[in-house]
């Protein structure tokens, strides 16, 4: 019985499995309920689930009309975000996908405009391409408004071409002329480009990015960790663990690990000791990675309360995060803020490792709305049930850490100052998608 139940535990794995077989609307509902019930919780799981769902949504959407695609993705995205507004990566992935569609649509239009310029924006969705400073400028030049009018003006012509080049019935479905696809190609401009195929490819790249992001971040580890360092970390973030593991292969240092009781201490204990005690439900691929201690790194596990006492000995604080906001602040596991504050007080550099996908264009006007509260039973066990009636038990899951407490962000694009993050945000998300 336990074996079957563990296989059926709702989560990322079960969702991805069901995604292939279920109807698209069922899948959307499924993910919404998983998000609502917090059965998918970690940033990466949420991002992966969203990306796969959107991949499915777009491939099921039998149209090449970018406006329709955008509309469809927006409606799905709105529902997902409404299901769990604090899981900001969901919105981030939706925005990325929307951006992809828009880019492709613009590419096409540009191709129609001037054939010679078409090649310059071949793959704007890959992360590396965003380093190119010319890109945002190009994109900024093409603002949304003229786009709509152009499309309206050119639609009869392009629809004729699309009739020829795309013999699918959907493309010729009766609809308002303004919304028809501009995706048709002039003959002689290479192979006919399908927006949908391009977008699907782009989403595939996002999914790849989600898979590799930790390794990409870890590649910077040796630039930031020197020998004999004492590093403090908190929670069992896979990103941080991979980062440290990468450095541990070359250098010897000491890790002080705050156990992040009560929300993450069990996973932290497993991460630290490397032995999952029993066949736990958390038998993901992440738990199979080597613990730091196997590489000869001394790991000191401390309760969260001892952070201040030990901070004077710590050289560097390296933390993972839940999401990063546009102002450089971050929403991370509860307890991060005091650690960051203690690091500031002791002038210890604080480094946050985070994939770009956690970067959210949301600006935090109301910090409290970003914070999620968890199970009070973890703070006060059920043996103390009599107390629970009398007192108000709080178990915040996240902390908002202001940007001034962070010294450095390391993303898969490299190291950035917190003040630079807005630039990365504007590279990754389009203005028109920020509130979709």
């Amino acid at each position, binding site marked *: 019985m336990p074996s079957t139940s563990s296989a059926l535990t709702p989560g990322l794995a079960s969702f991805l499995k069901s995604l292939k077989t279920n109807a698209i609307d069922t899948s959307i509902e499924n993910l919404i309920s998983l998000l609502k019930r917090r059965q998918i919780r970690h940033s990466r799981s949420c991002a992966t689930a969203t990306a796969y769902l959107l991949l499915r949504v777009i491939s099921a959407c039998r149209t090449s009309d970018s406006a329709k695609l955008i509309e469809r993705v927006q409606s799905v995205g709105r529902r997902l975000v409404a299901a769990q507004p604090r899981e900001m990566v969901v919105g981030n992935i939706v925005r990325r996908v929307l951006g992809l569609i828009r880019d492709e649509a613009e590419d096409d239009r540009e191709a129609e405009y001037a054939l010679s310029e078409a090649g310059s924006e071949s793959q704007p969705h890959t992360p590396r391409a965003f380093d190119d400073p010319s890109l945002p400028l190009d994109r900024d030049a093409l603002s949304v408004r003229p786009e709509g009018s152009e499309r309206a003006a050119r639609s009869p012509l392009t629809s004729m071409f699309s009739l020829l080049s795309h013999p699918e019935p959907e493309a010729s479905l009766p609809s308002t002329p303004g919304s028809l696809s501009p995706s048709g190609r002039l003959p002689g401009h290479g192979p006919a480009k399908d927006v949908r195929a391009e977008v699907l490819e782009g989403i595939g790249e996002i999914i790849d990015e989600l898979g590799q992001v930790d390794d990409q971040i870890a590649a910077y580890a040796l630039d930031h960790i020197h020998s004999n360092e004492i590093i403090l970390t908190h929670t069992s973030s896979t990103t941080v663990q991979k980062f440290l593991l990468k450095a541990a292969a070359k250098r010897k240092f000491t890790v002080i690990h705050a*156990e*992040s*009781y*009560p*929300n993450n*201490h*069990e996973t932290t*204990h*497993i991460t*630290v*000791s*490397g*032995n*999952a*005690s029993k066949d736990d439900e958390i038998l993901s691929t992440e738990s199979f990675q080597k613990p*730091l*201690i*196997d590489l*000869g*790194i*001394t*790991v*000191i*596990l*401390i*309760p*969260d*309360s*001892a*952070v*201040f*006492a*030990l901070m*004077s*000995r710590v050289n560097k604080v390296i933390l993972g995060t839940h999401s990063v906001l546009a102002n450089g602040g971050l929403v991370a*596991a*509860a*307890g991060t*803020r*005091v650690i960051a*504050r*203690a690091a*500031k*007080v002791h002038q210890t550099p604080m480094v946050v490792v985070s994939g770009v996908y956690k970067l959210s264009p949301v600006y935090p006007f109301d910090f409290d709305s970003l*914070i999620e509260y968890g199970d009070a039973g973890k*703070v*006060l*066990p059920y043996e*103390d049930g009599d*107390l629970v009636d*009398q*007192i*108000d*038990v*709080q*178990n*915040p899951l996240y*902390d908002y850490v*202001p940007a001034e407490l962070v010294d450095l962000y390391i993303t898969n694009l490299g190291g950035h100052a917190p003040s630079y993050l807005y630039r990365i945000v504007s590279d990754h998300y389009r203005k028109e998608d920020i509130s979709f």
Partner: protein
Amino acid sequence: MTDPAAASQPGPGPSVNAAQPATETPTPKTLPIRDSQSAKGPAQPEQPSSKAKDATSSSSAGATAVASTEASSEPAADKPLTPAELKKKAKAEKAARRAREKGERDQAGGGGGGAGAGPAAPGAASGAGQARAPATPKKDAAGGAPQKGQRGVPPPRRGSAPVTQAGAVTAVEQKKKKEDKNVAVFGHLYGQQRRTTVAGAAKEVHPAVLALGLQMRDYVVCGSSARCVATLLAFKRVVESYTTPLGTSLARHLTTHLSHQITYLSTCRPLSISQGNAIRSLKLAIASVDPATPESTAKATLCDFIDSFIREKITVADQVIAGSAAQKIQDGDVIVTFAGSSIVKQTLLAAHKEGKRFRVSIIDSRPLFEGKNLARALATAGLDVQYSLVHGISHAIKDATKVFLGAHAMTSNGRLYSRVGTALVAMSAKERAGGVEVPVIVCCETVKFTDRVALDSIVVNEIADADELVSALPPHQITGLPDPAAASAAASSDPKKGANRASNATTTSDSLKTSLNTSSSPLSNWKETPNLQLLNIMYDVTPAEYVDMVVTEMGSLPPSAVPIVHRMSTNM
């Protein structure tokens, strides 16, 4: 257990084993060691022992033999020993202790080299063997010994107190293994492991003190003031039951008699600053007793002194502090406090009694969860209580208007030395982003002031047993818990020792408890995991700039006034 061991051993092993029960009365401590040593015998049978080693072991062997016979008779006839016998016993004990210490030192220094010396002297087994106890498991493993898993299993033929046996062995074993489990930075703080049983306590130690020691070790008596009061009360009983031996004066001998008690207490848990201050003034009072005064009068004076010390320095002081600190609370305040300080509790209750309406937010921490008791007390009194753990500090502090903290001690440089995590709360209050600073008020009796200074939390601190971190539940009972391996071994050998049912029951219940505590945690065998260290410190030092006010029975002061007040109060 001995049977398979004997079967697997050629050579001298079995004969030694067989000889032992006949020749010596069973003493709990020496027994498993002897077994393991005899087991070790065949591994290096013809190893010549170094001369010096041999000499020490044989000389100490005689002493220990005496000690062991004495010890076995001790529980039966404790009091009615003649002074001569007493003296002899003390001597023997001392010799045994010295031998043990020496052995341990050898162990630490000698490493593998020392291994050869032991087994060559089977006659001198008990003395040297006792000393070598900690190393036996390691050596067994190193030598690829066939008798794995046997050690720790109490032999069924010896009925006496298998629990203490296991406890003693595990204590020593743990100590040995802990050597590389010490966090390097805190190396200076790992002194002796905390005492787990009353076994081996000096005979002068009063039963009240014995009990108190274990209570303090188990955090039953916890908190600086509580420990101070309990110590003084126990010492009062010591003084009451004290009779000056012939040929000495009370002023001289009582001090040394007390120092035995103090030594015992400090092996259970390092003494708090308040305890130290109280003991110092008690000793001063003893020393100033006029030798001419009759014993009964002197004792009455001392008891009065203790009573008035408790009353003045703690009971009344607490009332005064609670009264004046309660004045600082206003209607609508949100008070944040950390862990469970008794004086803060009194303050809050006093303010509540005055009819003030305020909210209390308690922040608690692993592994002691002291704030839970405070929360319960305040909630039953009808206060509005909010409870969260260290991870919620920044949320709790957000709408705080005042922070009240208890103290373990105030150092002379104005820093607050208190339960670990206090500094985080004070820091969060002072560094609140964008908001107004929240005043941090420390409630502290002057008996907790010390002339020591502290800059960080590393030089001066107390290391608690790291195993407390392994289980997620707060510790209910720690004393006398055998280590899991020994417990399971004991449980497995249950049918064999059906004779002694009482001890059997305690062993199984203990093992049950241990398994409940540790088996579920991935950290349960952290001691065997290389490179993994657990650190459980008790205190941290809050910088003086985070403390706005120290409320004492002498008034409310800035932290910089601590040394002056301390001088005033000690010079009185």
